[in-house]
C-alpha cells in the first residue's frame, strides 16, 4: 500500500510532528516500503489453538510516598512556583 503525501501529512499531524517538504517526500517512500512489508501479515495464519491467559498482576491500590514536586519541576523547561509554564493555550486550533 503506497502512502500519499496527504496520508503522510495526516499521520504527522496525529503524531504531533511537523515535517519539512523534504522529510515528507522521504517518509512517503520509506513508510510505503515498510507498510508493503508488513502487509504480509494479512495472509498469515493467526488462529491460536489454545492460549494460556497471562494477565498482569493487580497491585494493591495503596497510596505510597511520591518524589517531591520540586524534584520533578527541576526538569521543567519553565515553571513558576508549583506550576508548569506554557505559552498561551488558545490560538492555533490543531492541538
Amino acid at each position: 500500500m503506497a502512502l500519499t503525501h496527504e496520508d503522510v501529512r495526516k499521520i504527522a499531524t496525529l503524531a504531533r510532528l511537523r515535517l519539512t517538504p523534504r522529510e515528507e517526500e522521504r517518509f512517503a517512500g520509506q513508510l510505503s516500503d515498510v507498510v508493503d512489508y508488513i502487509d504480509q501479515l494479512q495472509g498469515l495464519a493467526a488462529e491460536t489453538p489454545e492460549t494460556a491467559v497471562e494477565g498482569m498482576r493487580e497491585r494493591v491500590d495503596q497510596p505510597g510516598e511520591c518524589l517531591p514536586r520540586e524534584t520533578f519541576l527541576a526538569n521543567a523547561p519553565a515553571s513558576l512556583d508549583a506550576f508548569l509554564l506554557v505559552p498561551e493555550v488558545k490560538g492555533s486550533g490543531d492541538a
Partner: protein
Amino acid sequence: MPELWELSAEEIARRVRAREVSAAEVLESCLDRTARVEPLVGAYLEIFEGESRARAAEIDRRIAAGEDPGPLAGVPVALKDNLSLTGRAVTCGSRILAGYLAPYTATAVERLLAAGAVPLGRANMDEFAMGSSCESSVYQCTRNPWDLARVPGGSSGGPAAAVAAGSVPLSFGSDTGGSIRQPAAFCGVVGVKPSYGRVSRYGLVAFASSLDQIGPMACNVRDAALGLQMIAGADPRDATCAEEPVGDYLETIEEGIAGLRIGVIREIDAERLGGDVARNWRESLDRLAAAGAELVEVSVPGIGAAVAVYCVIATSEASANLARFDGVRYGFRSPGADSLADLYFESRSEGFGPEVKRRLMLGTFALSSGYCEAYYGRARSVLERMRWELDAALEQADLLVTPTAPSAAFLLGEKVDDPLAMYLSDIFTTPANLAGLSAIAVPSGVSADGLPLSLQILGRRFAEAGVLRAARAFERELGWVVAPGFRGAEVMPS
C-alpha cells in the same frame, strides 16, 4: 600478569573482597584504558569520573571496615543512556531529552549499586533505542572496536563497544527487538535478553513496554550470569515484573549440555545467508553436538513474520509512550512556539531525529482509525500464534538455536538510508521479545575478514539458568577470547 582492566567482573570482585586489590586501583586501570580506547571507539556520552572515584573510595572504606560490599564489589560498569541514575543525565541519545537529569534511580541500577558496582559512564545508543547500528544517536558515532569503519550494532552499541574495547568488564543495555544481542554479536561479546518480567523496567525510559527488558553484556558467559543475577527479580514498582523466583545462575552454569535437546528451527534456513554466516552456523551446530547436545528439528511456521509483527507492535507502543515528550514537563522545548499547540509540534519536530519520527509515524498509522484492526489487531493475532508455536517448539526441545544476526557488523553508513534493510538485521532476535522468552547471544567465531559472529540460544520464559548453562558450554567448546584488533587505528591501544 594481566592488567586490572583485563580481568573478568567475577575476578575483580573476588580480589577486591579478598583485599588483594582496591576498588580504586581497578577503577583507575579501567579509566586509563577508557582514555586510550575512547578516542577510537566513542562508546560513552559521559564518563562519571568524579562520581565513580567517590564510589570506589566508598567500597574501599567499607572493605577496610570489615563489610562486604557485595558480589560486584568494585566492578566498573557502563550504563546505557536510557537507564536512570539519580542526578545524572539520561538522554536516550536524543535531543529531546537534552538537559534532563534523572530524578530517581532505576531498580536495576539500584541493585547494581547495592551489589558494589561502580558505574563508570553513560554509554551511547540509537535514539530511543530505535536502530541496529547506534548511528541514530544524535550525539556521536560509536565505532566497532574490531573494525573502526564498522558499526557496533544497536541499539546498545555503546555498552557493547565499551565491553569489547576493554573499558569495563560488564555493561547494561536494554533489548526490545535485539538491542542487546545484535550489538553483542557485532562486538564479539555476550549479551542476555532476559525473559519478559525477569528484570524490573522501573527507571528504564520506555520504548515498547510489552517488549523492553534490561540485560547484561560481558566478555564471558559467567560475568553475564553474575550481572543478570544482580538485577533479576520481583519489584513492586513494576507491575509487569514477575514474582517468579530467581535461581542461582552460577551454581549450575558449568553443568554442560550433555543430553539436552537443542532445537533447530526448520523455517530458518541459515544456509541461505551464505558465506561465513552459513559456515559458522554449521560449525556451531557441530560444537553443540560435540558438547553432548542432541540436535532436533522443530517447526515454527510463523517465525518469518517476526520482523513485520515487531514493526507494528513496537512502533505502536512507541507512538503512545513517546507522546509524553511534548516540551512541557522535561527535556527540550522549542524556543519559538507562541501557542501550546505550536509548542507540541515544534518541540517534537525539532527534538526527535529521523528514525524516531519514522517509527512514530508508522505506529501512529498502525493505530489510526480505519487501519488499527488491519495492522495492530492483525499483528497481535499473528504474535499470539507465533508465541504459541514457539512454546510448542520449546516443549519438543529444551532450547532453540539460531544465528544471532544475518551478517557480521556492517559498514558505517551502509544501511542508514534503507530503514527496512536495517530492521531486517533483527530478523533472528525479534521472536524472543515477541514471545517473552529468555535469550542469549554468545560469540561463535569470526568471519574470513576477522569480524565476530554469534550464536543465539533461546529458552522458555524464566529458563535463564538453562540458557546461560548452554551458552557457557558452547563458549568452553569454542575457547573464545575477546580481542578486538581496532582495525583502522594508526596505533593499537595499549
